[in-house]
């Protein structure tokens, strides 16, 4: 073993772990502040998810990577099956079926579809190894692995998660070496087809209306649609962020949250209340920690010595990265409302554990360096 990092716990493992812990602690503080606005103690339950998530991350990091490689079709098949089942048996909350109810706990299968897709793609590319670039035809099975869960998630409907799955899929393919031409072709088809069909009225007006409703439904939480105040949620979120100014109003002083103009403040819009409390400085610090986490994860990925581990880590990093970008972009009004959680900050067990699995997988690659 010759290299700069002789010890398996490389610097990147440390920085990943530290960044994760910092974010998780920030998240808990933030949630406990949010409790002062809503009176609901989400942070207490969140502690359970954090502890459980860290244990799962540790377990995922410790298990032999071959286990994941061998079992990835089972994970993937199970995830797809759950996505089908949730459409049939899922809890029907305001026109969408995203959750299974198990007593008091709700499970969101789409969260677990993300790491499953990553494992499946990594396995595919590991098996289909090609030193040159892939042609579009060779990529077809990989596209299928991504399209199936993405379509099922869209049917819930949950546009945001579906987009993340697609983005993560592309990220893995890109990293593996998809030809730029193929990549651009795929991207072009998606980017051009939909607006063209929209503009040329190939999509009928009633279909457009459906799409619009679907967009709002998959965005703002449906229960919020009843009254006008929360229909303005994206704008209210911007007001909250803007009100934070440079230094923020301070802990538990977020007016927009206090006045309940951000009903999803503990969830998709957790950043809005954080931004109002902590201001630009706080937000930059938070982004810096996320950046540190994502960069560390990428370093872990590139240092893995096994192709499967590299691709799994890259996919896992992509999960965290795209989720952060989409969520922050949504809160800041760059993207339309897509309804996504902010990894490790938003309240929720499924999202927390899914994120922890992702980090666990990269840590696994970093610790074992993917050696088989």
């Amino acid at each position, binding site marked *: *073993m010759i*290299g700069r990092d002789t010890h398996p716990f490389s610097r990147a493992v440390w920085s990943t772990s530290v960044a994760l812990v910092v974010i998780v602690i920030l998240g808990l503080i933030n949630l406990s502040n949010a409790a002062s606005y809503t009176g609901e103690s989400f942070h207490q339950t969140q502690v359970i998810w954090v502890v459980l998530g860290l244990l799962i991350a540790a377990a995922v990091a410790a298990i032999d990577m071959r286990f994941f490689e061998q079992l990835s079709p089972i994970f993937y098949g199970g995830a797809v099956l759950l996505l089908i089942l949730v459409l049939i048996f899922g809890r029907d909350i305001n026109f969408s079926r995203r959750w299974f109810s198990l007593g008091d706990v709700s499970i969101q299968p789409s969260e677990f579809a993300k790491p499953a897709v990553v494992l499946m793609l990594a396995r595919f590319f590991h098996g289909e190894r090609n030193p040159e670039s892939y042609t579009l035809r060779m990529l077809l099975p990989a596209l299928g692995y991504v399209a199936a869960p993405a379509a099922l998630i869209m049917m819930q409907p949950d546009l945001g998660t579906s987009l993340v799955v697609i983005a993560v899929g592309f990220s893995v393919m890109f990293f593996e070496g998809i030809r730029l031409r193929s990549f651009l072709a795929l991207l072009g088809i998606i980017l051009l087809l939909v607006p063209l069909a929209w503009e040329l009225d190939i999509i009928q007006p009633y279909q457009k209306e459906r799409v619009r409703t679907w967009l709002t439904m998959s965005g703002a939480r449906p229960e919020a649609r009843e009254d006008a105040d929360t229909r303005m949620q994206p704008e209210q979120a911007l*007001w909250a962020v803007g009100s934070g*100014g440079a230094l923020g109003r301070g802990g538990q002083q977020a007016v927009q949250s206090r006045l309940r*103009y951000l009903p999803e403040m503990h969830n998709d819009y957790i950043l809005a209340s954080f931004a109002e409390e902590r201001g630009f400085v706080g937000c930059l610090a938070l982004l810096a920690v996320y950046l540190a986490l994502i960069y560390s994860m*990428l370093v872990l990925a*590139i240092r893995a010595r096994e192709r499967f581990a590299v691709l799994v880590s890259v996919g896992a990093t992509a999960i965290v*990265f795209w989720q952060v970008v989409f969520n922050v*972009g949504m809160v800041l009004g760059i993207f339309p409302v897509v309804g996504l959680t902010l990894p490790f900050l938003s309240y929720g067990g499924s999202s927390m554990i899914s994120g922890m699995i992702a980090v666990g997988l990269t840590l696994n690659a970093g610790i074992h360096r993917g050696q088989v």
Partner: protein
Amino acid sequence: MIGGHDGFIEYRTHFRWAVLLVLLAFSVLALRLFQVQIIDGKKYETLAMVSHVVRNRIQPARGSILDREGNVLATDVEVADLALVPHYVRDPATEIARLKDLGVFTADEAAKVTDMVTQSKTDKKKRFHRLTAKRNLVGSRCPDDLTVMNFDASTGRLVCPKCGGTQMDQRAVIQAHLHELPGFSLQSRMVRWYPARGLTSHAVGFVNEVSAAEVERSEGRLRPGDVVGRSGIERALDDTLRGAPGEDVFVRSAGGRRVEPRDLPEPFRDLTSTPPVAGKDVTLTIDMNLQQAAATALARYRSGAVVALDVDTGEVLAMVSQPTFEAGRRIVPGAGTPAKPPASVRAESSVDSKAYAPMMNKAVEAYPPGSTFKIVTTIAALVEGMAAEDLEMTCPGFYLFRGHKFRCFKRYGHGKIALVDAISKSCDTYFYILGEQLGIDTLAHWARDVFGLGESTGIEISERVGLVPTERWYMRHRHQYQPGFALNTAVGQGDVRVTPLAMARAYAAVVNGGRLMRPHLVRSIHDAVSGSVTSVAPEVQRLIDVPDDFLDLAMRGMYGAVNTEDGTASSAALPELPFAGKTGTAQARERRPGVGADMAAWLQQDHAWFVGYGPAKRPRVAVAAFVEHGGFGGAEAAPVARKVFEAYYAAHADEFADLWQGFEEDFLEVVR
């Protein structure tokens, strides 16, 4: 696998691309954060403030108007309306039927409201607009007399202590069921209530809502829904009565809950509410005793006015105009029988009062004064040296002036007559001659510059100034002047126009030793906020420099008019405690197109006047009684004045107990 390298070489490039992508994405996010929080931060904070902060204007309670004893003549009363927002009414038919069963709606009302709600519910905009389903709910006050009602536990109804009527407390019933009636609410509202009903309407006046144009002109002082005084004291002292509005500032949460600014950080914390400043209470000089007496006495006539003044202070003790009107009558819908209106309202209801200008305050309208003007002529002639006590003239029933016959009202003449008798018997011939000698401009000088006729009296409410013509006036307005005009003016005919108020004041000046007072309706102003009371002091507008002897002569003439057998007002005399005065019968034939025969005949009648004072010795009160197209002053107006004197005497009986002892004998020597 070969050691010595970190990862796969072929991934290196992609790793760099990935890092670049990540940095790029995070830079975009950071820049956007900078834009939202640093560049536009204040803008977004302001937007949040503007949209969440609610500023509600709090109407100040309008000050009350009271009579001199402190009885309420005008005050604000809270009433409630049942309102609804169609969108939130889930099932209009059922919910309105329930309100019908509770006795809030009649079947008709229920059907109407159901229609209204059902229609509005389908309209995208209208369904969020608040509608009033029922105005003026019967609440804690009697719908007839607005007395606060008592709750009778045995029947569960409200009982009026005044009229005995019973009512269901609709307000309480609705309040109890409000939780099961989503979309419905009770809205309280202040309305102006005039407990004296029509009795003091002209002095007190009335209020109503401002128009959109007035709101615009007021530059923010008035808002839609505000009320302003339109006449009388309500208008004259509008600013005093109104007070200053307050502002309730709070922050509205997403659920519509009220959040106090002090519970929020800056800049919300700095928002403060201001309480409204209640309007000041105005106590009038009106003596309801006299007011009622005057109104009752006038009630048998179609149109007229009475003014009673305190001769020493100029306080208006009574101001009645007939017919009257009732402001704010429909505050509460009459579910039961209407309460008895005061006598004045009841009596006029036999004729169509609308034809006789009920809104006009005839106490401050100008009319030809007839012979009541002769007192002015008398004083003027005495001071100018053209008359004396022993100046005798002969009245053949007319005065021939430049080939023109100026008739005395007594067809065959008064014969030989001296000054005092000429006043008592109102000999026109006598005064024609005085008028000829004085000339119209000297007469006008005395009337206007001395006795304040034809000029503003300075009372708080708006008034007509009247007119005493001069030669100049005739040249300007009639383009001709004839010396005969002076003769007409001397007997209060022709173009002289005087208000009953101005006439009463002039007489008061004759009997109070020559002090022309500013008549006033406001006795004091009470500021409930500071607790201070500002009293209105009597104000002498002018001192009339006339020797007492001359004033005595005029008073003796007036004494005779009422208290001698052939005086013009002898039929109205009060022998127990005499009053004195001068009658007037002013020719005022009018033709109005399109009126019925009854009214046309009425318009042919003369105006009846009586202006006098009482008691005849040591006068306290001056009264002007005017009956429009009433006929002879002595027969029609003097009895009205007599009723007012009677009421005044009755109220001050103890003060007058020994006044009359020996009065008759020494009257000619001592008047005051």
